[in-house]
């Protein structure tokens, strides 16, 4: 029963969703949005599970003084600070249990939750994102090392695209006569991006779509069951 009921539900819901893709009439027209609402309600309850997991995992590491336990403590303090500030004084236009906290707002310029969000969280998030620039450089260096014919092609294409996207690259080939326009850096860049690059991406997208199709069909008809925890 533990396996059968979810499988029956999966089959029914899967078939209904497929039908609703082709039938515009009520009730099929409302099914997708209704199911999405149900999903949101369930995930709202599941959020509590996540919070419990977060507190339990981190507090057990702090309690047993595991290596680097200070980081886990910092995580817990951050979590509770935001929760408490949000509950007491709310955020943006929403009031908290103690109202809008006008006196604190006069002192900080914002509500405590918004203050921490704007001055701590956003900057930390931006810092992580900005790491990408450095990682792209190191990854590109490895990718462009010429080891084979393919990596040679990759490097040549990359140089053309990188130069073609800059004014310097355009300037390099701007002296070419109009009849040799196809040798201009900007033209070659657009050509690479528009044709070989798009063709390869579409091929991947088509194959992925077929993969999604097959995977969904296996799940709907109950052949694929490992997402339920067991394939037996």
């Amino acid at each position: 029963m533990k396996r059968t009921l979810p499988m029956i539900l999966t089959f029914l819901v899967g078939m209904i969703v497929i039908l609703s893709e082709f039938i515009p009439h009520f009730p099929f027209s409302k099914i997708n949005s209704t199911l999405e609402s149900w999903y949101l309600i369930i995930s709202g309850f599941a959020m509590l599970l996540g919070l419990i997991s977060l507190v339990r995992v981190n507090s057990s590491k702090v309690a047993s003084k595991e290596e680097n336990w200070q980081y886990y403590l910092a995580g817990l303090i951050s979590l509770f600070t935001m929760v408490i500030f949000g509950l007491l004084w709310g955020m943006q236009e929403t009031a908290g249990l103690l109202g809008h906290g006008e006196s604190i707002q006069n002192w900080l310029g914002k509500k405590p939750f918004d203050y921490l969000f704007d001055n701590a969280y956003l900057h930390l998030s931006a810092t992580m994102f900005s790491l990408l620039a450095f990682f792209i450089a190191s990854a590109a260096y490895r990718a462009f090392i010429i080891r084979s014919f393919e990596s040679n092609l990759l490097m040549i294409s990359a140089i053309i695209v990188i130069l073609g996207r800059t004014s310097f690259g355009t300037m390099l080939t701007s002296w070419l006569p109009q009849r040799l326009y196809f040798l201009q850096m900007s033209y070659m860049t657009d050509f690479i991006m528009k044709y070989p690059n798009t063709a390869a991406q579409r091929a991947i997208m088509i194959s992925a779509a077929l993969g999604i199709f097959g995977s969904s069909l296996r799940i709907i008809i109950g052949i694929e069951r490992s997402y339920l925890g067991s394939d037996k």
Partner: protein
Amino acid sequence: MKYMILFIVLFACIFPLQASSAFQAIDNAWDDGTALILKWELPGDSLRIAISQIDESGIATLIHESLDLSSEFKVTELEPNKDYRFSLTTYALSSGDSLIYQTMGKPTQQWFYMHKLALLLLFLLIAIAVLYNIYVARRGKELFIRRINGLDSMEEAIGRATEKGKPILFVPGIGDLDDIQTIASLTILSHLAHRAAEYNSEVIVPCRFSMVLSAAREVVKEAYLRAGKPDSYRENNIFYMTDDQFGYVAGIDGIMLREQPAANFFLGTFYAESLILAETGFSTGAIQTSGTANAHQLPFFVVSCDYTLIGEELFAASAYLSRDPQQLGSLKGHDFGKALFIVLIIIGVVLEMFGIGFLRQFLSIG
């Protein structure tokens, strides 16, 4: 009464209100009853057309302006089976008067999206091919499936983690449970956790969403049960981290640097964080396997990971790893789909070269 009739006649002369075929509201065919098509065909001396929607209290709201004497306009976001009133105002040069036309229409729901006919046919063809191959596989026919290096490497990765006594890190992507890539990722996690349990290796699964957390816990727990080692299952190794994209990345980077996992698996939906994760993992020297259907992130994974599952390989993983004939049969159905698309692309290109747009129009869904 005399004055009343005189007033109506005079009003009709000044504002000739016409509910004629010059302005019509027609139900948009084969849709969900949320659109009407307004069509007009006006005399040649009309200038600048303004179309308004009139609500129940008679207030008109301008919805479209045009200079075309004969054209149509699609009104969307309407409610099905409800009467709607529209007016068209124009200025006739010959009479020197404004002309007002009024019409009514009711959008109705249909039982089939005709513009999705091609999609339905393709869906049925591929579904039949998949089901037929599953049937053939059930009858015991040997099916050839090409090797997928990224999946064959799973044993190598688990073996290495066991030798080094280090954990395995499995990242199920940043998608929620309603994302098919996350489901595919969890099916791979099931196989991985089973093998890891057999080798007594530890699997760490940080999750971005609570729904993924509960599903991942169930999957890993069942895998340990299947391996006959329920006592080795540690619930705290599968944990929720944060909903925030870069907070999640920072947390995983921290795990990679502190715990130094011997093998990293990044399978599922990934966006900007893909390279940050893969490069950090690369710097720790872990053997890395990645897989996603997000085409834009694949180059980053290819560069930084030892093995990459590209597009459909992620979805084929469960069938490939389980070696279940029925599931392998469904993979053959994919191949039919690919062949069908190749044929359609070639025919389409040839037809377009000869200026025949039939196939393109038929296959256009929008």
